[in-house]
């Protein structure tokens, strides 16, 4: 947890918060952003739980999550760490744990406490002793193989019960290898070795989990990184049946919170990089292009290469890179354009800001230009002053404590888990290229004398298709991570999307936008449902913010109207459900010519559009079916 900053007055702040009558959640989010040990984690959680008194906080970054921890040993000490780690991300999680040893009964019994809890997410947190029981060193290879088969089929049965009966997202933690070895380095040759059994089971889990749509919580990886002793204390296991020791609780909570956040589309999306002494050694404005330390030949220079290579790898898998530097633009750009040892090039940076304004203002501008929320940004800067300034002005931006040796920075960023991701789509892989195309579009926009000329010059084509198997990963990803341009913020699983595909009364479409600069990928999802009296109800309408201002909304409506008419619709009805992040679409239907027919106190509204007499708005977008 070394990436989290110490807050020197933490205890005092917690006590002040405990005495105040203010709403506790927003303050608690800030306190959760500090480096916390197990005791502080418990204290913060106790205060939040007491104040919420069973209710939910009014404003969070995502819908509340109901998480059931299922296992066969003690998990009670992990609830607070999970809740605090999600609190850190402004996500509210309620937790549940099965009665001791009763996870199978609770899964299967319709009257169980688990069913009563109505979880939406289940985490199977088995201690390795439970899954390895019965395995012993005198087993033959066949017996050991049969035992492995028994365990994997037990796991798959549990997953399916949680997924199909409880309709839950399923998480499975990998096993801690806490068994002392009997042979040594070649333990795998002893079929009945418990340690080797754990290794085989962990090796089997990724394929099994992928086949069942289950996400893994890589406890084995964390223990390999930190050492088993950091995670497991045999004395505490005997005393309290705690496989993960309380001291590791906060780190465990982080692992869970990252996956929960990733599923909700709340992982960080963009790494904002300082330049001098962050990407290279020295100050380019003072030392000149030749004077900065980067590249092979010096340990420090190689350390900075490693930082750049890690950033480049992140970009290749879909993380957006930006630069925020106090520098003259020409000086800041020079290494990217002319230094032979730079790994990162201008084309890797989606948004480049170098000037003398304060960094908080620049970071705001970066978020605005990239059309992503400030809470999607991670800011990497070697300068403690700048870090504190940004933390103070923009508490929603993640600002890691940076090791003063660049050699340690890649592991620090990885361990902080900001960019946790549950899958990779073609869009992820193409993202940097897309931001480059956006730059080209911006240049065209600057050149075009008026908006119409610009839009016409883009030669846009909208290509749509109904939900299909091939697109399902991207559809689910968009449904779960789009927060801003999202009318109802309803989240659906792959199973839900499959149900929509099978439903005669449901309309699910995915829309791709192409233009002369390239393919923008799937940029819109609309789900409609046929209802009585000639109504098609728009259950979901979401779009990628990066294509806004290009008539895509109007073109999408034209398409939806045409498809709804094919379903026999005479009217479209659409809801706006406000969240903390989707104010930009409050008047979406109004702007498209709908009439508001109902408004609620919380800002929600319902609008309708009579299709009789609907005239498609003219756009510069050609629409075709894929």
């Amino acid at each position: 947890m070394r990436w989290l900053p110490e807050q020197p007055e933490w205890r005092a702040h917690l006590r002040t918060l405990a005495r105040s009558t203010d709403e506790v959640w927003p303050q608690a989010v800030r306190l959760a952003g500090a480096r916390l040990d197990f005791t502080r984690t418990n204290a913060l959680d106790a205060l939040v739980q007491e104040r919420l008194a069973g209710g939910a906080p009014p404003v969070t970054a995502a819908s509340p999550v109901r998480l059931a921890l299922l296992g066969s040993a003690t998990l009670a000490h992990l609830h607070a760490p999970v809740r605090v780690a999600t609190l850190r991300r402004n996500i509210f999680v309620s937790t549940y744990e099965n009665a001791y040893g009763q996870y199978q009964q609770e899964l299967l019994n319709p009257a169980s406490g688990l069913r009563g809890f109505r979880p939406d997410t289940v985490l199977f947190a088995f201690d390795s002793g439970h899954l390895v029981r019965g395995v012993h060193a005198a087993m033959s290879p066949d017996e050991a193989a049969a035992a492995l088969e028994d365990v994997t089929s037990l796991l798959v049965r549990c997953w399916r019960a949680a997924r199909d009966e409880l309709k839950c997202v399923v998480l499975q933690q990998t096993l801690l290898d806490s068994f002392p070895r009997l042979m040594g380095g070649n333990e795998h040759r002893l079929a009945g070795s418990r340690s080797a059994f754990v290794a085989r089971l962990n090796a089997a889990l990724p394929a099994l989990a992928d086949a069942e749509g289950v996400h893994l919580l890589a406890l084995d990886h964390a223990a390999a990184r930190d050492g088993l002793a950091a995670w497991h204390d045999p004395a505490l296991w005997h005393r309290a049946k705690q496989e993960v020791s309380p001291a590791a609780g906060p780190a465990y909570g982080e692992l869970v919170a990252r996956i929960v956040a990733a599923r909700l589309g709340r992982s960080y999306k963009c790494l904002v990089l300082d330049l001098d002494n962050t990407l290279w050694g020295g100050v380019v404005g003072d030392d000149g292009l030749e004077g900065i330390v980067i590249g092979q030949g010096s340990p420090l220079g190689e350390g900075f290469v490693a930082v750049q290579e890690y950033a480049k790898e992140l970009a290749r898998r879909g993380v957006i890179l930006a630069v925020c530097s106090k520098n003259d633009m020409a000086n800041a750009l020079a290494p990217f354009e002319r230094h032979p040892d730079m790994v990162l090039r201008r084309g890797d940076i989606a948004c480049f800001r170098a000037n003398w304004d304060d960094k908080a203002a620049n970071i705001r501008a970066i978020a605005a230009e990239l059309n992503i929320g400030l809470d999607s940004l991670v800011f990497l800067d070697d300068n403690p002053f700048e870090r504190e300034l940004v933390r103070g002005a923009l508490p929603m931006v993640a600002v890691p404590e940076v090791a003063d040796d660049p050699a340690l920075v890649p592991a620090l960023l990885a361990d902080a888990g900001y960019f946790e991701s549950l899958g990779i789509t073609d869009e992820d892989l193409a993202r940097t290229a897309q931001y480059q195309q956006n730059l080209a579009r911006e240049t065209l926009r600057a050149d075009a004398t008026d908006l119409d000329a610009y839009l016409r010059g883009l030669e846009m084509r909208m290509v749509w298709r109904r939900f299909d198997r091939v697109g399902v990963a991207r559809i689910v990803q968009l449904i779960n991570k789009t927060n801003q341009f999202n009318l109802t913020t309803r989240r659906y699983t792959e199973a839900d999307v499959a149900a929509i595909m099978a439903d005669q009364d449901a309309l699910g479409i995915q829309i791709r936008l192409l233009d002369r600069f390239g393919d923008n990928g799937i940029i819109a999802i609309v789900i409609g449902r046929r209802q009585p009296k000639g109504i098609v109800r728009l259950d979901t309408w979401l779009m990628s913010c990066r294509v806004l201002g290009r008539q895509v909304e109007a073109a999408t409506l034209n398409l939806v109207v045409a498809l709804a008419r094919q379903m026999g619709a005479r009217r479209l009805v659409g809801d706006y459900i406000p969240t903390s992040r989707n104010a930009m679409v409050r008047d979406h239907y109004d702007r498209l010519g709908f009439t508001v027919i109902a408004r609620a106190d919380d800002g929600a509204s319902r609008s309708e559009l009579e299709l009789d007499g609907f005239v498609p708005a003219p756009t510069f977008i050609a629409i075709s079916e894929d």
Partner: protein
Amino acid sequence: MPHSADQDKIYAALTEIFNDVFMRDDMRLTPELSAKDVPGWDSFKQIEIMVSVEERFAIKLNTREIDSLKCVGDLACVIGAKVAKG
């Protein structure tokens, strides 16, 4: 019971730990204080105290030592002996 200077330091640190663990500001630790005197001091809180003590004093308490603890005085003695040994 008179404390040595070392024991005073240990009691001061334990008071902070107990205040944090029980979310209070007013814990007054005496050698005789035990779980039955403090609301909420259950087996989980006991482990939390042990984990905090181990972290604060950079020591490791073994199973026998933990089992033998009857009151705060016992804990302070065990810590004192371990810290002295380095």
